[in-house]
């Protein structure tokens, strides 16, 4: 039997299907766009069209409840068998925090601390020895220190999001950006550009400001300062962030193969373990 997990984030949606041993048999990604439910259903359509069946869906991410309601009310319902399950049994929800903890535990069974930086939020999670969530911290209501912040800043500086980290690593000097607010930081960057500052150095300064915030969150949750950190979410693909965090905290930073899939993967695993 297979189980699906979907992570509906502010920027991207991921779907992962696992078999009963917890192995990934399929994973897909799409941009969230303006209609996350339609995008999500499209992903499930393409999975079904490829002939992969699954028994249940576990939804996570900020769109989880919206998806659960929409999916449960689909008519005709795509998951018609087995008949002993009610619609409500077929789709349930879990928070991103628990989903990431579960997904990370599968990759790194000894992980004690997770940093997840996604499109619109960032969180630090401390795990117990058994992989369960012990404590977590999340950013407040604004996008400061998240993927969205880096994305907007990359655009302001004329870098592609994929090159942003690489270019920042090439900076000769560190430069300080004081504003954490996306709006204020953008004007700070604009004035630095006007002053003729090197754009790689500005890029590095922006990465440092995000790193400091992330390091603060990690330090508030983790008890053993020597533990390595597992870094997930889209921002974990940014090499400059990984390097800076590792340097700042003096520990190794582990990044799973596809850090953006961890939430959906964890959700799928939780679904498979529901019995």
């Amino acid at each position, binding site marked *: 039997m297979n189980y699906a997990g979907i992570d509906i984030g502010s920027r991207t949606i991921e779907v992962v299907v696992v078999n009963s041993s917890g192995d990934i048999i399929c994973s897909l990604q799409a941009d969230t766009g303006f209609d996350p439910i339609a995008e999500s259903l499209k992903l499930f359509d393409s999975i079904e069209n490829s002939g992969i069946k699954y028994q249940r869906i576990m939804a996570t991410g900020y769109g989880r409840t919206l998806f659960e309601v929409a999916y449960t009310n689909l008519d005709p319902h795509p998951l018609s068998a087995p008949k002993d399950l009610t619609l409500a049994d077929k789709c349930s929800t879990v*928070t991103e925090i628990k989903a990431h903890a579960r997904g990370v535990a599968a990759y790194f069974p000894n992980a004690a601390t997770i940093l997840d930086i996604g499109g619109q939020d960032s969180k630090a999670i401390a795990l117990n020895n058994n992989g369960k969530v012990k404590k977590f911290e999340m950013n407040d209501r604004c996008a400061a220190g998240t993927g969205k912040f880096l994305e907007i800043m990359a655009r302001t500086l004329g870098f592609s999001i994929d090159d942003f980290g690489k270019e920042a690593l090439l900076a000769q000097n560190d430069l300080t950006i004081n504003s954490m607010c996306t709006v204020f930081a953008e004007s700070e960057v604009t004035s630095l550009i006007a002053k003729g500052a090197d754009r790689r150095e500005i890029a590095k300064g922006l990465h440092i400001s995000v790193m400091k915030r992330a390091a603060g969150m990690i330090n508030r949750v983790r008890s053993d300062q020597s533990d390595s950190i597992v870094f997930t979410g889209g921002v974990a693909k940014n090499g400059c962030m990984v390097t800076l965090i590792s340097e700042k905290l003096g520990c190794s930073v582990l990044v799973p193969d596809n850090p953006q899939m961890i939430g959906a993967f964890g959700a799928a695993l939780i679904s498979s373990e529901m019995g």
Partner: protein
Amino acid sequence: MSDYTQMWKDLGLNLEAHDMLLNVLGNAYKDIYLSQKDRPEGMGYFDFVMSEVHGLRIKELLDEKAQGRKIIGSYCVFVPEEIALAANATLVGLCSGADFAVEEVEKYLPRNTCALIKSSFGFKLGKVCPYLESADMVVGENTCDGKKKAYESLGSLVDNLYVMDLPQMKSDGGKALLKNEYYRFKSAVEKLTGVAITAESLKNAIKTVNAKRAAIHRLSELRSAKPAPISGLDALLANQVFFYDNPARFTESVNKICDELEKRIQDKKGVMAEKTPRILLSGCPMAVPNWKLPWIIETSGAVIVGEESCVGERGTRNLVDESGDTIETMMDSIVDRYFKVDCAIFTPNQDRLNHVAQMAEKYRADGVIHYSLQFCQPYIMESIPVEKALEGKDIPTLRVETDYGMEDAGQLKTRVQAFIEQLG
């Protein structure tokens, strides 16, 4: 419901804005309160009180005024109701639980002022609080710096503002200050009503307010049962109405609910399943209609079993000793009782840390959610030691900082759900 338009007009309310407020309040109440399952029947009384909170209750107060009683409005649990009652006055809590007339408020207060202080100004500037407009005396008190300085501005908007000073340390000097202030308040109330407090009237007042607190204590004790016999939202409402209602009628209504809850507990019936994670809420007061966080918690699969708050156990803990026979001994007993209130304006405030941990144990909470209003420095400051103290006892704790706006509801819900998952 009767038509109170003329009454509101006579009080000088802005009818259009007031209608809007009642409409929002009514809808919120329907969505948050009336949608709950298995509520105790006795909550019907509180549903009625809420539906008439700006209607019948105001009419009652105006009728009392017509018979010569005075109405005193207050923003804080440090204002002793006993003294007001003993001098033939009625004490009511003033509105401060919703954003109103925000743009007007920001002409008087900086943006980064806590929502509670802003709200008290909003209700005045928007002319939508009939309690405030009915009051013969409005009591401000020097608790936090925000309130202390805000009363300087409120004085220009309210012509009957009385400011009470409060100590910041639990020292002999601090207690002497409180005693002095309570005597000064006594004289001011006597002057307002023209009624001299007697030993008899003070004793009766002490008994009346003690009975009200005792009823709430009884309700709180019952919430330690598993499964929880009443939702946290409903219990919070009782604690909120504590500040508005006629004391004797309130006491009777709460006791009636307690009778019902005792039966429920006997029958092992709960408002939610026995395994439901139990949360203790700790932190800033929640004035009507600030139900946001409790609503998020209880619609995320947990039940609130206690409020460590001024609108809750911090406000109602301890009775006044009833054994005194002279005004002096009774005034001392009143001072003794109020001086124990462990508001975060005090330093040091170890009592509060102890109380939070004791409450978590007594009400069998699986975790504590510490709630601070954004920009409320005293409680935000204390949230870190509270968290450390609780984690030292292996009690999971979540610190939340928010205001009255709904824009962070999604994020809050994720945090609260993750915390509840963590407990499960």
